[in-house]
């Protein structure tokens, strides 16, 4: 580089200028890297939350979704949904025909087995008697698998009998059929389970108790996963040499080659769309629907409402206290031991870990004051209020101190009392600043989990009416996010709901914060003139 045209001074200088510039530039570079890392981590964290969270609202819903919505929440046009359901039913018919044909074939084989067994039971020798004893328990109305079990017992008994020399052929036939049926039976059960997960209860099945089993896949993305699980059997393989275990996928169709079920796979593989009729859905009611069957259906209204109650309740306590404290500290308090002790207390309060607030709420508001019999929104709000109190005090103090001294002096000079000055001059002038602080701490109160775990939050619950709010616990977004993604029994099935909740919470908090940023920008512009 043709660096210094201003020559270096000769003599003692021993660190080259280039080295110093290199260090300088790399120092700035370090700063840029840090800033970049911060921005990047924001993007990396928010992006999946936003993208996947939006998919709770915007997704491709199947006919099962529309049926469930219609049955459970009375959304949509009943006639239209039913007409569409009939169309889907028609598309599924060939599949169900396969099942029927397969079942027919199986029951024919079962009949043959029964015939052989009954033939043997008709004999007068010891074989006949023992088979007949067994066959007395045979119930043609029993489920397929239990019939099969009885017949297997008959076969075992007969094969063990010494007098069975002249029924060798029958026994051999029985054995073949039994072997075929019982190996298939397990696979058929898995087949039917996978199919009913995909499409809902199969015709002829007894209707399941759980709501989630009464419908097939409501979302096309989930349906595609289930389709794959139907087409391929998954199996964990643990290699003996200690290599990491992995999942092996085998096509399920292999087990059903040559049976009546074989065409079903092609149908599922190619005609799933007409069976489930995926359609782009904007489910804005996710926000305002209550949840059914532990968040499998419906939305998150109970949680959203609970969060609202808790936040507003916290504000109700914290804002008056915080603003009054700030006014006192700025306008009235003279520097003294007590005031500095007060300030230390406020900063200590700001530093108390949130979980400790939760314990305190439990020990004080619930166990000592007994503001309510059990966890309640009231106790939760009070705990949250304590937590955000220091933030509000500080923000309000800053806003009040930012009011130019001249305003106050002018008002005081006009003969207004101190309190009057505060009410008519100081507060109005500092209101935007105070509001900014309030809005930011609202975001904090809405998103905080630890203080409400022991004081207000429950995992499952219905939206509370405002009258019950103070004495009852409530679901709340932050707590239910935790609960749904760690303690729910179907964590992986409900990712979209979890993401939807996180997205909703983050959106609420960010909207609050953005409005605070905008508010502040406006204020500072006004102050700058």
């Amino acid at each position, binding site marked *: 580089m043709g660096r210094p*045209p*201003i020559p270096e*001074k000769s003599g*003692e*200088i021993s660190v080259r*200028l280039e080295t110093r*510039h290199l260090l300088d530039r790399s120092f700035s570079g370090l700063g840029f890297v840090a800033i970049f890392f911060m921005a990047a981590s924001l993007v990396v964290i928010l992006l999946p939350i936003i993208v996947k969270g939006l998919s709770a609202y915007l997704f491709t819903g199947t006919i099962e979704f529309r049926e469930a919505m219609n049955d459970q929440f009375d959304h949509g046009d009943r006639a239209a949904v039913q007409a569409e359901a009939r169309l889907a039913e028609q598309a599924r018919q060939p599949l169900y025909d396969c099942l029927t044909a397969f079942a027919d074939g199986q029951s024919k084989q079962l009949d043959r087995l029964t015939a052989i067994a009954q033939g043997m039971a008709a004999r007068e020798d010891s074989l006949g008697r023992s088979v007949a004893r067994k066959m007395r328990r045979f119930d043609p109305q029993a489920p397929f698998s239990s019939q099969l079990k009885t017949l297997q017992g008959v076969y075992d008994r007969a094969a063990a009998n010494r007098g069975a020399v002249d029924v060798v052929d029958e026994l051999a036939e029985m054995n073949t059929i039994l072997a075929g049926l019982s190996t298939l039976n397990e696979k058929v059960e898995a087949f039917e389970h996978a199919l009913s997960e995909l499409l809902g209860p199969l015709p002829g099945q007894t209707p399941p108790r759980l709501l989630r089993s009464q419908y097939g896949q409501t979302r096309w993305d989930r349906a595609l996963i289930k389709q794959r699980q139907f087409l391929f059997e998954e199996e964990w393989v643990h290699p003996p040499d200690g290599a990491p275990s992995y999942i092996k996928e085998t096509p399920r169709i292999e087990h059903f080659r040559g049976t009546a079920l074989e065409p079903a796979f092609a149908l599922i593989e190619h005609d799933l769309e007409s069976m489930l009729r995926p359609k782009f859905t904007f489910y804005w009611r996710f926000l305002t629907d209550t949840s059914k069957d532990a968040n499998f259906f419906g939305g998150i209204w109970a949680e959203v409402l609970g969060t609202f109650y808790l936040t507003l309740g916290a504000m109700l306590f914290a804002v008056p206290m915080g603003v009054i404290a700030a006014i006192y500290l700025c306008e009235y308090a003279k520097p003294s031991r007590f005031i500095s002790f007060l300030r230390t207390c406020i900063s200590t309060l700001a530093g108390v870990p949130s979980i400790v607030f939760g314990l305190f709420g439990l020990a004080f508001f619930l166990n000592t004051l007994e503001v309510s019999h059990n966890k309640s929104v009231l106790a939760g709000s009070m705990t949250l209020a304590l937590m955000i109190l220091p933030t509000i005090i500080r923000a309000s103090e800053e806003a009040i101190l930012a009011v130019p001294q001249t305003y106050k002096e002018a008002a005081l000079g006009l003969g207004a009392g101190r309190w009057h000055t505060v009410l008519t001059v100081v507060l109005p002038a500092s209101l935007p600043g105070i509001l900014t602080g309030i809005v930011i701490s609202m975001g904090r109160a809405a998103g905080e989990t630890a203080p409400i775990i022991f004081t207000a939050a429950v995992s499952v619950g219905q939206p509370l009416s405002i009258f019950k709010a103070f004495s009852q616990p409530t679901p709340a977004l932050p707590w239910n996010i935790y609960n749904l993604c760690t303690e729910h029994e179907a964590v992986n099935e409900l990712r979209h709901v979890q993401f939807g909740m996180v997205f909703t919470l983050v959106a609420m908090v960010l909207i609050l914060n953005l409005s605070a940023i905008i508010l502040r920008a406006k204020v500072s512009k006004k102050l700058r003139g």
Partner: protein
Amino acid sequence: MDTNASTDTIKMKAMSQFSDDLDQPADIGPGEAHVSARDFSVFYGDFEAVKKLNADFAKGRVTAIIGPSGCGKSTFLRSINRMNDLIPVASTGGQLIFDKLNIYDPRIDVVSLRCRIGMVFQKPNPFPKSIYDNVAYGPRLQGIKKRAQLDDIVEKSLRRAAIWKESKDRLKENALGMSGGQQQRLCIARALAVQPEILLMDEPTSALDPKSTSRIEDLIAELRGGYTIIIVTHNMQQAARVSDQTAFMYEGDLIEFGSTRKLFTNPTEKQTEEYITGRFG
């Protein structure tokens, strides 16, 4: 100003051309010019704070710049060692020539420029370190690490700034414990330790009491000859006392520039006369 030379050869060529093109001022006045302004302007955004200034600052002499506040004298002073670079909206036009090169030439290395053009500020600004560390700050930056050498530089600088006597027993004490006048002399010592050729002083006594002020003025008189000193001052008596030459600036223009005696006794311009007789300012 915007030489976008991309390779070294082009740069070298540009340099040689540049130095050839330099029109040496015909009338250099008393002594050889050390810094010369040629149509030099400083802008803050759209505002022209210094307007097309032309002046030669003589080597080894003390030049005072006077004028009412806001006339651009500090701005001009700060642009000589490019302290204005720290202000994002500031830009310059024209040339400010030092050692045959424009100070604002993009090839100039600001760091080595500032080693050669030192500065003392309005408010004493010693670092919150010991007196020794304050003075040794500049030399250490240049990589001088030997204790004996540093001791030598510190002592010489403190002596030259006439503060050795007061400070030699408390070199390890925090500089913030000194009085304002001592702090300012320490700042001068700190600037001298880098061995600059030019010393810029931006109202160095405005924050000091009269006694400290006169000590600083004595110091300037002692430094005269060894360094080119350019001092901005509010105080006309001070300018008259310490400087060889005086420049009077008004609203960004250089109104008059000449020997101090002449400017104060027989000003050419009416504005100068009005200012020094106290009719405005």
